[in-house]
């Protein structure tokens, strides 16, 4: 709903409002269970009950017994007032609100999956579990700007904006969980203390109540902004921008940061000397430099907080007593992450803009990257706890291009486009004043706590780190002939003694690949002929590696990736695939688990037909088009996992496949109607 009211010649009010309810069901990610399960087992017994899947749990039972829902409503709206005065000045003030209310609930019944002999397997839920929670979020943003817009002497065009904004985001959530609900049905999914209880001991089994704010949604910001845009004769463009932002997430000394930027552009195509060159229909040269900031951290990362959910069990009989102590350290020196961007580019149009191209060189240097790091155990933060630091400086640079050709032959109109970007990523420095960080960043922790990335100066950030392999020890003689770990046996992998010190130990781990592609590209095309339109869009990347994390962590021996078929079984049988083992030495992080992550994916393909105007009633319908569309139709890749688009958990944990859910191809059929 958008409305604007002109209340007076120079004054108007307006408002926008969008309301969106949603409802979703969350299923547990059973991809990793399915990957590990023994493939020959039948999921059901003859009587239809769930069959045991050893050590992993029956994923169908997991899915069926999980009832995890969320629903909510979100409203985004704003009101604004705008007044013009002195002909060229406009003052605008707007207040925007983004509010949402969410409910989540989850119920797992008591169930048991049985072994074939009738005994209970390890997959069971002794008492039913119920969780009810709700949360609300509110963000308000108040923006005030004064704009000056005037062209002097017909050629000097000024567009100046000054502004001040304030923003606050707050949230609160509450949740209760309990065990042993009286009945399984949906009608009883309420926290009624009389029906969530343990009949044997006659005690209420509402186990935990939680209430607090959402740590990512509790902050405020103040910004000052200023922008000047000067265009001379439509040919030369100069822009200067300055922002000063302050965020509550940082301590007072580091709260505000300045973000200037500067851009120039030269519309060469409008120059008089270009008028005679007919085949060049447009030519623009541009360059820019600027700083932007990032503060996407939890509001409490800088505080060292007290952990209050501890319990001591003391007394006779044993009773739980409240306890509280220091939680993990906070980092009070956190500050803004800055990215300095430089961009130089050319835009060209040829043959009346039938062929257009953009070419850019970019360089983005990010300083004080905000990332969570593991701390030494003796600090007492607890296992696996991470603390946020401004840890490193990283540069991303390269060339980008975007070419597009359109034209027509008779009744056929076509457009093709190709785009690409090279990426060079390198860590420039690690640590720095007061950052608390030393000389390397360790990350990419697998499920069992082993890290697989190590970032240091000169390498890409999140670079993979492990042993290099060089064949398989075929005989005892070969084994004795080369430095090896005490666990290595004949038929196991040979790890390279990288530092040539005659010993095979932790110092022989090295850089084994980068998760960051060297080149990303896309190709798209669109053709239409007499009302039929056909378009497709390819996307891909190359030069990046994927770490097959799901294969390295080996909890059980029931299923292996099929390359294991060609395993070593005796001298000369394989120099690539070691003898099979259930975890252990051959499952140490090494380049055995590094795969090429390059891929080309058909992102979408659409075939449509627009009915000719002669066939439809103009009075009622102006245009009617039907189409079929497919998304993610096929992928060309050498990666053996479910999808090569792995994504990243954080900048140090990028490109690691933990058992990613396969991407779905979707096919849709649609109708466009214009009235």
């Amino acid at each position, binding site marked *: 709903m958008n409305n604007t009211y002109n209340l007076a010649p120079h004054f108007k009010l307006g408002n926008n409002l969008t309301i969106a309810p949603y409802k979703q069901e969350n299923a547990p990610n059973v991809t990793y269970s399915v990957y590990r399960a023994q493939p020959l087992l039948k999921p059901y017994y003859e009587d239809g009950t769930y069959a045991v899947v050893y050590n992993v749990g029956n994923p169908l039972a997991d899915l069926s017994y999980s009832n995890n829902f969320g629903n909510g409503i979100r409203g985004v709206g704003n009101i604004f007032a705008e007044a013009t005065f002195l002909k060229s000045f406009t003052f605008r003030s707007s207040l925007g609100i983004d509010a949402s209310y969410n409910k989540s609930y989850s119920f797992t019944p008591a169930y048991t999956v049985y072994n074939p002999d009738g005994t209970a397997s390890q997959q*069971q839920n002794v008492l039913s579990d119920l969780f009810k929670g709700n949360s609300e979020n509110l963000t308000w943003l108040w923006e005030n700007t004064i704009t000056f817009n005037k062209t002097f002497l017909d050629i000097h065009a000024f567009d100046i904006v000054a502004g001040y904004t304030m923003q606050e985001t707050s949230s609160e959530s509450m949740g209760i969980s309990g065990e042993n609900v009286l009945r399984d049905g949906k009608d009883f999914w309420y926290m009624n203390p009389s029906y969530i209880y343990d009949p044997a001991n006659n005690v209420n089994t509402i186990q935990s109540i939680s209430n607090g704010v959402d740590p990512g949604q509790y902050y405020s910001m103040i910004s000052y902004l200023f922008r000047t845009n000067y265009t001379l004769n439509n040919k030369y463009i100069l822009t200067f921008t300055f922002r000063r932002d302050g965020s509550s997430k940082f301590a007072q000394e580091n709260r505000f940061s300045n973000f200037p930027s500067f851009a120039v552009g030269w519309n060469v195509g409008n120059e008089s000397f270009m008028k005679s060159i007919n085949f060049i229909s447009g030519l623009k040269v541009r360059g820019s430099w600027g700083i932007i900031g990032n503060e996407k951290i939890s509001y409490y990362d800088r505080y060292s907080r007290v952990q209050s959910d501890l319990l001591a069990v003391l007394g006779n009989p044993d009773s739980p007593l409240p306890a509280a102590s220091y939680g993990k350290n906070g980092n009070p020196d956190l500050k803004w992450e800055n990215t300095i961007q430089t961009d130089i580019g050319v835009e060209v149009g040829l043959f009346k803009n039938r062929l257009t191209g953009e070419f850019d060189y970019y360089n983005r240097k990010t300083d004080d990257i905000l990332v969570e790091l593991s701390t030494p155990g003796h600090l*007492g933060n607890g296992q696996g706890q991470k603390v946020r630091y401004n840890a490193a400086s990283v540069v991303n640079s390269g060339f980008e291009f975007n070419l597009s050709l359109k034209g027509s032959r008779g009744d056929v109109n076509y457009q093709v486009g190709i785009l690409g970007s090279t990426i060079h990523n390198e860590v420039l420095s690690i640590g720095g004043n007061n950052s608390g960080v*030393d000389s390397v960043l360790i990350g990419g922790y697998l499920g069992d706590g082993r890290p697989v990335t190590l970032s240091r100066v000169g390498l890409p950030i999140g670079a993979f780190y492990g042993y290099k392999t060089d064949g398989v020890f075929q005989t005892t003689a070969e084994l004795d002939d080369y430095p090896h770990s005490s666990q290595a046996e004949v038929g196991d992998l040979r790890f390279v003694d990288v530092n040539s010190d005659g010993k095979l130990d932790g110092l022989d781990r090295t850089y084994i690949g980068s998760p960051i592609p060297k080149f990303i590209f896309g190709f798209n095309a669109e053709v239409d002929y007499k009302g039929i339109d056909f378009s497709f869009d390819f996307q891909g990347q190359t030069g990046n590696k994927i770490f097959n994390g799901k294969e390295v962590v080996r909890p059980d021996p029931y299923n292996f990736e099929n390359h294991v078929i060609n395993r070593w079984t005796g001298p000369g049988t394989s120099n690539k695939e070691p003898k099979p083992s259930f975890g252990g030495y051959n499952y140490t992080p090494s380049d055995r688990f590094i795969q090429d992550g390059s891929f080309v994916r058909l992102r979408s393909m659409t075939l449509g037909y627009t009915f000719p105007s002669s066939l439809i009633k103009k009075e009622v319908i102006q245009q009617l088009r039907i189409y079929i569309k497919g998304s993610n139709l096929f992928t060309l890749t050498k990666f053996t996992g479910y999808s090569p688009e792995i994504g990243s958990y954080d900048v140090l944990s990028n490109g690691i496949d933990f058992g990613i859910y396969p991407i779905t191809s979707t096919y849709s059929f649609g109708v466009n109607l214009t009235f």
Partner: protein
Amino acid sequence: MKTTLKISILLLPFLFITSGCEEFLQKDPQGELTQEEFPVSQSDALLATNAVYSTIREWGYHSGGYPILDIMSDDANKGSNPNDQLPTVGPYDKFSHTTTQDGLDRWWSTLYEGIKRANVVITKVPPIQMDTVLRNRYVAEAKFLRGLYYFDLVRAWGGVPMITSLNPPLKVERSTKEEIYDLIVSDLLYAAKNLVERSAQGNEETGRVTRGAAKSLLAKVYLFQGDFVNAEKYALEVINSDEYELEAFFADANSKLGEHGVESIFEVGAMEVEGSSGDQYANTQGVRGSPNRGWGFNRPSLDLRNSFEPGDPRLDATIIDLGETLDGVLILGDGTTPDETLDALNNVIEVECYNQKVWYPGTNTITQWGHNRRLIRYADVLLIAAEALNENNKPAEALLYLNQVRERARGGNISILPDITETNKNALRDIILNERRHELAMEGHRFWDLIRTGKASSVLGPLGFVTGKHELLPIPQNEIDIAQGTLTQNPNW
């Protein structure tokens, strides 16, 4: 619209720009205290002291989660079904574990987290205005627990970073073994002085550290250092305090009936809850399959079974065999675990059985979480006294206490477990070591007893123990990596 009204509406925002900027951008933690504000009162001191106890109930406190100490010793095998945790826990069984082995990091981190919580009390409670006796007691409890945590660290890894204050530097070198032992001794001496005896505690305080617990642990610490004079001194002080006795029935030393009983000097309180107020220690070793009490790790070995003297009832009370009925529950075991495991020559090398010392009445996993692990019990103190007295050339007195343990085990049956009369120091030393094995089997003592008495090479060598390497666990590789050279790894790892 009137111009003045328009202009005044437009100018309103500017009023806000200058005011309230500072406060608007100050977002303090919601519903949580910061460390600067805690502890400041007497009730805070109690909360902080209670927190030091919560570590002993964490899964990672118990040798990193899985009972690797007994598994490394000749008393037990990995357990559970053959495939379960074979790559993570299995290697400990054959001494093929590495610096990245599962559990090392967890144990190290959990112990240091406990030490941090103790340091909060030790450094922050003394300045609080509160009752002096209570204050000293809280600090004493924290010091005992800190000593307990460092005792595990120094026995498992040797010299470790010594952390006695809050916010230590990111890089701390390893102290020597001797320096850590000195800290433990000074902590325990303070605790012994400022704590009360168990009989002075009311029911509400049962389970909190006592003077007797501090002295018992002190005796053990001195024993491990080879200071038999002090080990004798403190063990006898505990014995002569008359605060403790042996349970009438051997099984009650570890059973539900014996919880907070006469023999228990320090135990881990736990409730029958699958979660925070329970303890997963017993669930990890609980009977697997039918009844489903847990995962079945720490399976008593044939070697342990065969080492008992003929008729020793402690064998039956230590091992749950298939077909037994305990507390009315028939033990059938796990379908995926072979009842007997045979080697290539058809010899039986493993029999499916479970640790009876963690048995808790019940038929499901939830009740198994209620078992209270006995960290220090009176029988252990008697045997420490016997060992120290023997080393101090007082065999007659040593036999007195040694035979008390055997008498209880005998349970009135005079035809078994005859009193020991040996007075030759070396022979008696071996007898006492064996008695420790039979009395304290499956309670996490055997591995370190073998190391400190120099018997590890001969007894564990056949199992893969390498002298000069396996006396200590390797420092977790993650810690070595993060320390960037400040921590040196243990020899031959």
